[in-house]
């Protein structure tokens, strides 16, 4: 393939990728996204009708369960903690147009790394113990991300495929470790596919007297700030954004694209790994697969809906945390299955994608004589 054909490809690709260059008109964009939310809710209402439940009762229960009281707000923030983190992991990767969908697997490997840390560092002073657990969790996620980056850089294996496959592989590894392997809960006669509870010293402390909200939420906010500074204020952030816009120009400038890809994936993996740490050591207090399930995939939706910006991701993460936390209430009060929430998230993603295109429509027409 000649250079010029690569350039046309990149040029025509960049037009529809999530670009942040000239925003058409803020008011128009905002209108489109509001429309996306409205259509998303309308479609969700249709979905609720298929279950035969009362739509308004269901929505009311959903929101009451999510934000109705101080207690439920704390529960929502606790639910949003891992989602914000996996959302941020998505932001870092997708801004560089590295299409990693490995957040799901990295959550698992992060949780496993942290659990490993909690076993080998037991007995150290609490603050050191906790820091090492968190660090080993981040390393766990980073390793998985790094492998995908190396496969892409050295062997030209699409990161989309390799991360999907590793998502499956890591679940098999976990299933072995906790379902008959060395980490299986010992006392039980039945194998429950989980480890025993983690020591109290390793658990993330709760905040503001809540029984749900834990220190992990602070990590999520700090991570969002770090991601913002990293992307907008550092040379690496410039390279990441430039990789999204025009990798060829970046290569001519002398940047090692392979190295940047590895860095992006390692950072993204570490942040996703932190989500696993927060969920295991903040909420479930033992390593098991079902509490981690779908956190990574939901994070992709959150990052996308958040416009691939850290602040947007925090907002979307809290909204989705609210859905996850309100779903149980809705199930009790309106008899709508809690599985409505992932379906609703998928609908929202598609309506937002369409809105993003519609918001850029004018620009597309101007640029598109090619």
């Amino acid at each position, binding site marked *: 393939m000649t250079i010029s054909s690569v350039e046309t490809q990149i040029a025509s690709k960049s037009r529809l990728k999530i670009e942040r260059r000239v925003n058409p008109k803020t008011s128009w964009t905002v209108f489109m996204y509001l429309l996306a939310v409205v259509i998303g809710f309308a479609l969700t209402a249709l979905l609720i009708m298929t279950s035969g439940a009362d739509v308004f009762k269901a929505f009311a229960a959903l929101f009451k369960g999510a934000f109705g009281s101080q207690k439920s707000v704390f529960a929502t923030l606790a639910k949003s903690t891992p989602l914000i983190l996996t959302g941020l992991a998505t932001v870092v990767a997708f801004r560089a147009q590295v299409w990693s969908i490995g957040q799901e697997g990295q959550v698992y490997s992060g949780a496993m790394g942290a659990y490993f840390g909690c076993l080998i560092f037991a007995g150290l002073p609490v603050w050191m113990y906790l820091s090492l657990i968190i660090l080993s969790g981040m390393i766990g996620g980073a390793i998985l991300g790094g492998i995908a980056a190396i496969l892409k850089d050295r062997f030209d294996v699409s990161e989309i495929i390799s991360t999907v496959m590793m998502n499956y592989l890591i679940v098999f590894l976990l299933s072995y470790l906790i379902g008959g392997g060395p980490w299986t809960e010992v006392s039980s006669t039945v194998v429950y596919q989980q480890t025993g509870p983690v020591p109290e010293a390793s658990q993330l402390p709760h905040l503001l007297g809540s029984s749900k909200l834990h220190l992990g939420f602070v990590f999520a906010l700090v991570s969002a700030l770090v991601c913002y500074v990293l992307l907008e204020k550092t040379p690496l952030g410039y390279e990441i954004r430039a990789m999204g816009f025009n990798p060829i120009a970046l290569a001519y400038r002398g940047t090692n694209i392979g190295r940047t890809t590895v860095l992006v994936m390692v950072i993204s993996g570490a942040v996703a790994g932190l989500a696993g740490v927060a969920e295991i050591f903040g909420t479930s207090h033992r390593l098991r697969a079902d509490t981690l399930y779908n956190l990574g995939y939901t994070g992709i939706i959150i990052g996308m809906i958040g416009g691939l910006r850290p602040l947007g991701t925090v907002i979307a993460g809290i909204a989705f945390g609210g859905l996850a936390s309100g779903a149980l209430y809705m199930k009790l009060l309106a008899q709508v299955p809690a*599985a409505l929430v992932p379906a609703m998230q998928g609908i929202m993603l598609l309506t937002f994608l369409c809105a993003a295109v519609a918001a850029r429509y004018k620009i597309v027409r101007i640029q598109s004589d090619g």
Partner: protein
Amino acid sequence: MGDLFQEAILVSILAGTVRIMTPILFAAIGELVTQRAGIWNMGVEGTMLMGAFIAYVVATATGSIWIAVLAAMLAGGVVGLLTAFMTATMRVDHFITGLGINLLISGLTLYWFRIYIKGRAQPTFEGFENVPIPVLSSIPYLGEILFTQRILTYVAFLSVPAIWFLLYRTRWGLELRCLGENPKALDIKGLSVVRRQYTAVLIGSIMTGLGGGFLMLGFSDRFLADITAGRGWLAIVAIIAGRWMPRGVLAAVAVFALLESVATHVQVLGVDIPHQIFLALPYVASIVLLMMLRSKSGEPRRLGIPYFR
């Protein structure tokens, strides 16, 4: 272990391979058509899952597995319409679209499944039986491996030469392949790009839905959440590893299916190795295959790039 026993196991593994190939082959050969037309449909996994779920609902509700097969194809077609709308009409990035569709369907099927089984025991159905082909099925070994299968397995294997013929020996196929290489050429001739993109996506999605339907009706008697377990992704890998040619795709699908067949037999035989290692084999193989086959010579030049006039 006697020789006779080992022989029987070998035959059983190979016959299992052919059966396991079926759903992945439907999806891979169908998506090959889509990809040759330049649309990189990353939503294969979700499309297949929808096919499997609808097949389950219809099979348990009507009791007819053939109506269920038709419903699965229809479900695949509906998902295909959505995919085509997003990629060909809205021109959203192909990868993002597929991802969105996978996530949506994973949620939708789980939600509808919970509604469907609410307040009762999960209904089951009678799946497909083997239909031995007369004469051929009595050939030693081969008869049992190749000619004692479900009807749709024969259909899947016949679809490979059929799609090959369509792609390489008809005007329609030429135009379709042109779409993946140089859509402007078609556009200048006054042939509709968008309509052909819709056709290509629909063919792929209907075949993928059929694959999902067979996965449901040929292997199991009840639905489970995310029952496709990555088979849609394996179909995509098979297309890349098979360098976008029907023969190559067939070979790559065979590799994955053989590994899965070995894994299921090992579980039954009770070998003293964690069974997860064997279950992981197809996924490991997919990464290794892609590492080994680095040449992308067969890749359509405009694959995954939305067409703007």
